[in-house]
């Protein structure tokens, strides 16, 4: 085996995820380079640099002991909730909706960090919850409170996309914690009833518009529907092999809005065609398969829930983003992990990956079945 000739420190690294990640980021950098009109320094360079920085961060997270995760779960959650309140207050004073805090060297979006944060705190909660209690209301009540506070704060901002992402991560952890299936079915049925009501009462005007336009994009070809229409034109005009690198007219002539952030997949698909799209899907598939495998091999309940929650959080990002750009979901501001240009989402996703890598490390050091 050639493995013997590779230094141990390198061989020990989780290449099963690092290689797909690098492929995605590299591909993303190429697309960003083209979106900037063939200039690497505009977006692509910072994209790669951020990946490198956050990769180091992920490596560091991966080396943290499980105890620290458990201890930090609740305090981290508390700090994030406090930051959300702070953002809300600043936004209130500023007279508009604000989602970030300016830390000087970067802008911090607490709602982004809450996505892994909610997974961590719920994984911790179910790991400390006595096994016998998982079928009772006591398994649900505290979890509902833990979810309700941040989700409510984020929705107030208002940021529907992130709110849904947080809820999705939390529900996945509850589901995987073994709560009775009928609760989820019941909640799903209730959601079907409440959704139309919420649509007309709770949503903001612009959010409602986005949903309406999603249902009929041509009704507003120059307004909100413009995004969806132009994105579909970009993807559709790419064909099977695309227009070629640097030849995407939709992105280069600015018909495609947000061509380097939320709609980066459309920019890619225009130039690389369906081939490029399938490549991205396959690479994401590899990452999720790795995440699920890590979760299945995890040594204990806490790490299992942690790994699957983190995996599904990334999955939610990808799933909603791709559905949005292909006209299957309303326009919500959710970027595509590792391809969209943007620091916050890169950080969140790398925290998720770092956490899964940590779980993978724990399962290597602590053989399964002992805890």
């Amino acid at each position, binding site marked *: 085996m050639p493995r013997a000739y590779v230094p141990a420190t390198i061989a020990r690294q989780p290449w099963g995820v690092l290689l797909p990640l690098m492929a995605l980021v590299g591909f993303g950098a190429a697309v960003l380079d083209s979106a900037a009109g063939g200039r690497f320094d505009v977006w692509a360079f910072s994209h790669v640099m951020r990946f490198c920085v956050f990769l180091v961060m992920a490596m560091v997270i991966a080396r943290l002991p499980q105890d620290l995760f458990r201890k930090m779960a609740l305090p981290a959650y508390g700090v994030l909730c406090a930051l959300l309140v702070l953002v809300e207050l600043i936004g209130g004073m500023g007279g508009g909706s604000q989602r970030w805090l300016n830390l000087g060297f970067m802008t911090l979006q607490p709602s982004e960090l809450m996505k892994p944060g909610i997974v961590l705190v719920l994984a911790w909660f179910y790991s400390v919850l006595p096994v*016998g209690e998982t079928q009772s209301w006591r398994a649900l009540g505290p979890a509902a409170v833990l979810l309700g506070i941040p989700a409510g704060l984020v929705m107030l901002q208002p940021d529907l996309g992130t709110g849904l992402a947080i809820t999705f991560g939390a529900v996945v952890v509850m589901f995987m914690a073994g709560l009775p299936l009928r609760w989820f079915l019941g909640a799903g049925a209730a959601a079907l009833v409440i959704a139309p009501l919420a649509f007309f009462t709770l949503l903001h005007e612009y959010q409602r518009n986005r949903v309406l336009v999603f249902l009929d994009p041509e009704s507003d070809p120059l307004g909100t529907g413009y995004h969806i229409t132009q994105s579909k034109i970009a993807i*559709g005009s790419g064909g099977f092999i695309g227009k070629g690198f640097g030849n995407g007219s939709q992105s280069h002539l600015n018909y495609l809005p947000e061509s380097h952030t939320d709609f980066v997949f459309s920019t890619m*698909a225009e130039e690389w065609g369906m081939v490029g799209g399938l490549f991205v899907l396959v690479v994401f598939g590899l990452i999720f398969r790795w995440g699920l495998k890590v979760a299945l091999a995890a040594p204990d*309940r806490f790490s299992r829930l942690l790994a*699957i929650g983190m995996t599904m959080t990334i999955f939610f990002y990808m799933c909603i983003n791709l559905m949005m750009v292909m006209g299957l979901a309303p326009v919500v501001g959710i970027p595509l992990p590792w391809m969209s240009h943007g620091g916050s989402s890169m950080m969140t996703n790398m925290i998720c990956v770092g956490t899964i890598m940590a779980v993978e490390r724990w399962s290597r050091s602590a053989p399964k079945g002992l805890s």
Partner: protein
Amino acid sequence: MGKLPVTSAVLTNRFERRTFVLGALQGGVGLMLATRLGYLAVAQNEKYQAASESNRVNLTLIPPRRGWVLDRFGKALASNRADFRVDIIPDRVVDRDRTMETLAGLLSLPPDKVRDIRDKLDKARGFQPVEVAASLDWERYASVTVRLPELPGVIPQQGFSRFYPTGAAVGHLVGYVGAASAEDYEKERNPLLVTPGFKIGKDGLEKHFETRLRGVPGARRVEATASGRIVRDLGTREDVPGKPIQLTINAGLQDYAARRVGLESGSVVVMDCETGDILAMASMPSFDPNSFSDGIGRIEWKMLSEDDHVPLRNKVLRGLYPPGSTVKPMIAMSFLEAGLDPSASVGCGGGLRVGNRVFHCWNRRGHGTVDMAKAIYQSCDVYFYHFAQKIGMDTIAKMARRLGMGQEFPMPYPGQSYGTVPDPAWKKKKYDKEWAVYDTVNATIGQGYMLSNPLQQAVMASRIASGREVMPRLLLDRNAPQPKSMGFRQDHLDYIHAAMSEVVNGRGTAGRAKLPVDVLMAGKTGTAQVVGLNVANGKSGQWKYRDHGHFIAFAPFDKPKYACAVVIEHGGGSGAAYPIARDVMTYIFDQAKAMEVLEGFEAQWGGNVQQRMASRYNVFAAKYGASAPKPVPDDAELAEQAEEGRKPAEAPATVQTDAAAPRPEPEQVPSRETAPGPSPTASSGAAAPAATGGQ
């Protein structure tokens, strides 16, 4: 499984099963996304490729240069001028207020212009371009171009705009152009119509010959960004300019005639009486087609619509007037044709008794013994009353129609008012009343039901002058056959010509109309009353009650070539008309001499037409500024208003019950030719009334 106690192992088992569910979910979503991707990129590829291409490539039509309108010598009456312009596409404007503010600053637009544009923006359908400014200099044009990224919907471009070198002089003759209206677009569905900078003919020849003048648009294919910035040119197709039309008009004469009308409201028609070519056809005051073509502003609109001289009416074709005594040569001709001996005379004692009524001559003191020649040059009414009774109205009416009265001519203008030639059958049909003596009396002096437009009077003068059945022509055709003869006897024509020459050159009613050149002009005066003597005397007082002044003429009298008709509305009598005819005719034979006279007048009138309109505009602008009360009418409204202005001023609405009082022919008051329109004060005593011989 039911109520098994939940243990750690059960939960682990459940975890594994549910992980599998999630994995399946991920796989399912992945499959769905791949399918959707395939559907968009492969199955629907063609559709989206077309959409992407139509995004990328922007096809801009280049409005074609319009065909020129030329005069008979090839001089331009309407041409094109290269210019820089700025338009707005209302649909694409994001912030209307801010855009207008920026543009007003960049182009230094006055507030009334800004309000005009705002009104148009409010009314315009989204796709219709609204003109902000045209004929810009390079600096201002460039100042807009560089700010383009922050001004979505604003389109600066280089193009051509219509230019009428003599302005108001050709307003009614040529018409004007303007942006296509929504109705035009409905009719034609041609994207060219909504191309910024494109204008279509709105009136006159511009409208009538639209298809010929228009040309074929060029096109420019460019790659443009979503915000409209042009990335690169993909190719340009040149436009094909429209075909020119050449008119029979003599541009210099047209301009001279228009200017010579001065402050009066009237028409001048000059024709080549051998061919029917119209050499000049002026209706004044007029509008400046240059500013109409740029979209008329509120102040100018107010100025035009409030003018009692109705500048919007083409009086040559739409004005109807009782022709007054200018019909007398025609009536004399009918007498000759009917076999009357021209030397047959009648004694005029100032009136003619018919039954128990006396019909007065304009000269209450009487003309003594009057034969046909004297009846024409002295304009004796009694002579015509007397023989008209004998010969009968039908003969007169037939001759009137033969000479063009009451006829509509094939002219490239919509809706001529062709007036009336009354006869017993007509009256019976129209009013169900019998023809009365006073009707004949009225008709022989060109009053009563008799109505004609100035063009008909010019045609009548031409046909009498040349004895040929000339038809007025506006399009130059050098190979047109000569009009056929009317069939008059040459000695009859010569007799009438001599009598008409006497009007001007001898003992007649228009001695001051004698040409200052070595050409003898023949003519006939006419004064038509507007209201009865009980309302006003027709000479002074309220402008709208003053008599119309007429003059028909031709020259040279012995070998007629040019015929002319002048009608001055409310001029107070023929004295207002014949000096104009004299100067216009002089222009044909000696331009320098005529111009000298005109320049003298214009110095008194306060400048030429353009200068007077400009100063009038400034008065209005200073008075109303941006707050001009009446908003500018849109195209449909403008057409409607102009139509309103075109309705014949006087149509006999009621049956006439008495004879009109004939108006004195030779001028009794000091010359009015220098008196500005409504003001009765004569400013020049230089032209003292010439004592016409043998009154």
